[in-house]
């Protein structure tokens, strides 16, 4: 595999292997601390990020490699009008692997066609975010111990929620997985995700606007933020931003072993009072991001430890 643009670039076996390596890194971090010595990761973030960029950089540093890049389109030549294709052609000469985030959907695909080194999609607009899915899956494996026979509730912005699209693509490959899609009418899951990942695999799903009704049946609740940056019209954002707020009262409706995931950052969709609930797994989830990205970098650079 040269590039990771869509989570389906990885087979379920690839994902199992990555999770196995990530777990070995968690158990034996010293074994990996020089695995990528003299290798350089470029983090090209044309859109702001905290967790994804820092976890990529932390991952490479913990593998003994180096990082370079930018965290804002204003601080690179794109602000002078340079195309993504040209930027990538240049950076290919400076780095061994590229992690790229871009507000435009499909930008990493363009990058992959021009790069001479592996390209990882670190989020493209409201489209896909495969490395968040790997993080989610490492968390699910730790918290639930399986990927099959799970009822997964996805709540909030399912239209522009790139983490949701990639998670559905990945999890719809496992037997007995059912999705409950909880969103306001305007932020429902796009047709291409339903058609290509749910309908084509015969995966069961229901759509609802009621979080309360959905909660009792869920094994996993995946909350998402209504993303201000995806709206062209602020009025629409203001009308929809408080659609769902998870509170300790609502958590009383959930199973005792349900887990709450969130790709973060959150705004107000999960009350901070929920953080103390042991079922709130989102900060544990964020920590797993570094380990799975370490495993991914090793795989893409074909480094064996």
């Amino acid at each position: 595999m040269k590039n990771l643009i869509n989570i389906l670039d990885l087979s379920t076996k690839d994902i199992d292997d990555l999770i196995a390596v990530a777990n070995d890194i968690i158990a034996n971090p010293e074994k990996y601390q020089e695995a990528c010595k003299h290798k350089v990761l470029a983090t090209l973030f044309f859109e702001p990020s905290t967790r994804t960029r820092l976890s990529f950089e932390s991952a490479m540093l913990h593998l003994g490699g180096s990082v370079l890049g930018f965290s804002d389109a204003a601080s690179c030549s794109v602000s002078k009008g340079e195309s993504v294709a040209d930027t990538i052609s240049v950076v290919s000469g400076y780095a061994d692997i590229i992690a790229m985030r871009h507000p435009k959907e499909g930008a990493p695909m363009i990058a992959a066609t021009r790069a001479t080194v592996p390209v990882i999609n670190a989020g493209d607009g409201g489209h896909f975010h495969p490395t968040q899915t790997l993080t989610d899956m490492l968390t699910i494996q730790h918290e639930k111990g399986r990927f099959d026979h799970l009822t997964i509730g996805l709540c909030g912005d399912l239209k522009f929620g790139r983490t949701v699209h990639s998670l559905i693509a990945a999890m719809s490959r496992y037997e007995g997985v059912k999705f409950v899609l909880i969103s306001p009418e305007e932020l429902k899951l796009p047709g291409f995700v339903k058609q290509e990942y749910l309908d084509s695999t015969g995966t069961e799903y229901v759509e609802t606007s009621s979080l309360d009704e959905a909660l009792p049946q869920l094994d996993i609740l995946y909350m998402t933020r209504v993303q201000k940056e995806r709206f062209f019209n602020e009025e629409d954002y203001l009308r929809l931003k408080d659609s769902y707020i998870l509170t300790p009262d609502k958590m009383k409706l959930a199973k005792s072993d349900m887990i709450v995931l969130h790709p973060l950052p959150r705004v107000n969709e999960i009350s901070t009072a929920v953080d103390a609930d042991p079922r709130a797994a989102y900060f544990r989830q964020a920590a797993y991001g570094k380990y799975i990205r370490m495993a991914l970098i090793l795989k893409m650079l074909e480094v064996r430890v």
Partner: protein
Amino acid sequence: MNIDSIKNGLVIDHITAGKAMRIYDMLHLGELDCQVAIIKNAHSTKMGKKDIIKIDSAIDIDLDVLGYMSPHITVDVIRDGQRVEKKHIELPETLTNILRCKNPRCITTTEQEIPHIFRLANAEKREYRCIYCDTKASNL
């Protein structure tokens, strides 16, 4: 209504009624020097009504455009007044630079040089999606 037969050229037949002008534009037939005839609403036993385009010159045309535009379309190749080939046009797997993506969040809106490519996502529904952002193409 009489329209002269052509000696060397193409007959694009079985066009869904009403789509001939769009095909004329998309194939840039207005730029040709030769005779081009558009027949609208011709009688068809199979289709009821159909459009036909006759081109009095053996030009190369983009068959992908035809396959996308109209499901039953055929192209007769005429040489010395005789039909020498009848092409049945399939739905193409990809369309390059025929459609433009309408999604304002798509990378094609900012990268000027890249080709606009759509893939066939559902043959039954004749549905195409942008390869970059997966947005559905609007029907022509």
